[in-house]
């Protein structure tokens, strides 16, 4: 059994809660006491239906205001897979939350109401999933029951989306007609839409191939922690612990350590008390090197002829999450892989309108929840790759040095 993380976004009316509720109910991930509590609250509020949004709206203020504030994580499993849903609200702080949910997702689920077709909201979600390079996208055309299960409606929405998607990077798109309320094509294939020959949503989620989304070619191992037991049994042990960000590491491999530039070979790879023959993403392992080099946290182990270029000039797409706008000359803390430093904003090249994809070059700042292309100069060289090549070595966060709050999420376009 493996793991699939997927991100959804939506508002109350597009049926997202109903869909998630159904997936959870049908996979028995919702328990009787949870369902009872939700039924009681729904009744107390005078609803004539069970509001499954109450399952995920966990915070007091969310229940009081009837809105979802934050990303909620939900879990369910089938015999084939375990699923983690990052469920994000559609309106409040949508960019921040969608970016958060999409950043760890293998798959994005965009919901549209068959009666309305593509909306600003569904386009915006697709744009963010594309920017965050979520490799698989599912467009679920919901409420098919309300359009008489009409194939033409589905075909039109699919065509509209495909024409919009030509401007985006979506490696794998699947469009599924469903009715979350009636259960059509959610868990089992619907008999109401014989014209649809694809899988049900759950079948697709269970079978979508995610193993090849990881980069198994370009070796990247950011050193996270140096293990030095200094005990009698392991007196000379020196291991470099970290999580493989790319490629496959094997004992005997010739490796290059950045930024020092020394080369050596991998002596062994430890996973707790076992030596392993190979390490690949996203394994957490401890690497031992043949030579005694000065390697510390923030360094990167890679291959001599396949290494990221250390750079202090970073060109990136930044999603701004700070309440005060991002402006040129601003100084911030930056965290990239296991490396931390400071950075200055050199330029805000353009602001991207996530609804129209228009690039606004006039505004030289990014307000809260805006996304734009930004040039940065860092105090320490980052050992980075373009985000399109590696989501781990291509991403960073920006931190306000006074408050310590995370104010930006960045995706590297290029580094010089």
């Amino acid at each position: 059994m493996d793991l699939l993380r997927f991100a959804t976004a939506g508002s109350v009316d597009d049926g997202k809660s109903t869909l998630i509720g159904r997936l959870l109910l049908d996979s028995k991930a919702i328990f009787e006491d949870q369902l009872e509590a939700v039924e009681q609250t729904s009744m107390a509020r005078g609803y004539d239906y069970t509001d499954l949004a109450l399952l995920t709206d966990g915070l007091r203020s969310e229940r009081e205001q009837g809105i979802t504030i934050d990303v909620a994580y939900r879990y369910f499993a089938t015999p084939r897979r375990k699923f983690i849903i990052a469920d994000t609200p559609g309106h409040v702080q949508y960019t921040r939350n969608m970016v958060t949910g999409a950043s760890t997702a293998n798959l994005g689920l965009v919901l549209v109401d068959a009666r309305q077709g593509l909306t600003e909201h569904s386009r915006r979600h697709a744009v963010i999933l594309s920017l965050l390079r979520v490799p698989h996208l599912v467009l679920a055309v919901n409420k098919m029951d309300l359009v008489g299960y009409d194939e033409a409606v589905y075909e039109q929405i699919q065509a509209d989306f495909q024409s919009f998607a030509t401007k985006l990077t979506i490696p794998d798109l699947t469009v599924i007609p469903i009715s979350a309320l009636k259960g059509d094509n959610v868990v089992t294939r619907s008999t109401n839409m014989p014209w649809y020959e694809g899988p049900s949503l759950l079948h697709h989620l269970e079978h979508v191939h995610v193993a090849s989304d990881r980069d198994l070619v370009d070796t990247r191992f950011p050193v996270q922690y140096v293990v030095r037991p200094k005990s009698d049994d392991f007196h000379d042990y020196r291991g470099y612990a970290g999580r493989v960000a790319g490629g496959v590491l094997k004992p005997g491999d010739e490796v290059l350590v950045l930024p020092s530039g020394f080369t050596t070979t991998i002596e062994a790879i430890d996973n707790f008390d076992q030596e392993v023959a190979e390490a690949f993403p996203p394994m957490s392992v401890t690497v031992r090197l043949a030579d005694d080099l000065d390697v510390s946290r923030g360094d990167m182990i890679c291959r001599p002829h396949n290494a990221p270029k250390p750079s202090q000039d970073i060109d990136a797409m930044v999603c701004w999450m700070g309440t005060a706008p991002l402006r040129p000359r601003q100084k911030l803390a930056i965290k990239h892989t296991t490396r931390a430093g400071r950075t200055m904003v050199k330029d805000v090249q353009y602001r991207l309108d996530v609804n129209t994809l228009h690039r606004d070059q006039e505004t030289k700042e990014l307000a809260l929840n805006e996304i734009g292309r930004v040039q940065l100069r860092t105090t320490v060289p980052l050992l980075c790759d373009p985000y399109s090549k590696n989501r781990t070595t291509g991403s960073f966060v920006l931190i306000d040095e006074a408050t310590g709050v995370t104010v930006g999420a960045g995706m590297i376009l290029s580094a010089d």
Partner: protein
Amino acid sequence: MTAQTDYRLSQLDELEAESIHVFREVAAEFEKPVLMFSGGKDSICMMRLAEKAFYPAKIPFPVLQVDTGYDFAEVLETRDHWVDRLGVRLVVASVEKAIADGVVVDDGKTSRNRLQIGTLLNVLEQEGFTAAFGGGRRDEEKARAKERIYSHRDDFGQWDPKNQRPEVWSLYNGRIRQGEHMRVFPLSNWTELDIWHYIDREQIEIPSIYFAHRRRVFERDGMLLGESDNVTLKPGEAVTERTVRFRTVGDMTLTGCVESTASTTAEIIEEVAASRITERGATRGDDRFSEAAMEDRKREGYF
């Protein structure tokens, strides 16, 4: 683990890798971390993951237990085995002592569980811990479903759920100011079933009360509580002996057990998989007081 040709990890291996990453990140970036150890299965799994994260070195931080004075003897015994085997320092913060010192006030109505909050915040401050690992999981409770892996606490140890830091990719922001601390939840993405599968796979030693045993119990508010010196029976409550096990481990006076004959981890997995009631809903009196009981305690600084 042996060589894998298809380069895929099982869900347990992936969860383990993620948790180990979190442990190492905290150890690298925080001055004085501590692992909050309740003796329950989740905190024992944390111990196991921390053991793996730093092996062959010892876990580079102490473990902290808040002793309610109402803890199960079997739990303390398991705690001591773990602490001895791993050779880590154990810090015990006693609620009884906190009451005696006037750190918290026992008004006779407040549960020991709630008094743990003041006791915990006091010891974190006194010892100057900057990061505290907790065994909380997001599947446990809906307030927890929205909590970050790195959960920032202010000077007063408070959690501000509406003002959480965005957590993107696996780039954790460990910045804190003087007097603040971070709660860190390495098991955020594990479910109750994942924990049991992991205990089974790793052959992890957990307190015997998780397995079916004979116990003298009585019914209160629809829960089965164990007979003990710390609980006074109310009129109409009668003690009977039944075969039970605990699904969670907490304050003896509030933690209920369930009737069960599951005596191995495999049998427990079967039982948990078939269960239709959450572990907290079934057995935790402390979560039942209001719809937002957990959120309220968490805001104040609970685990």
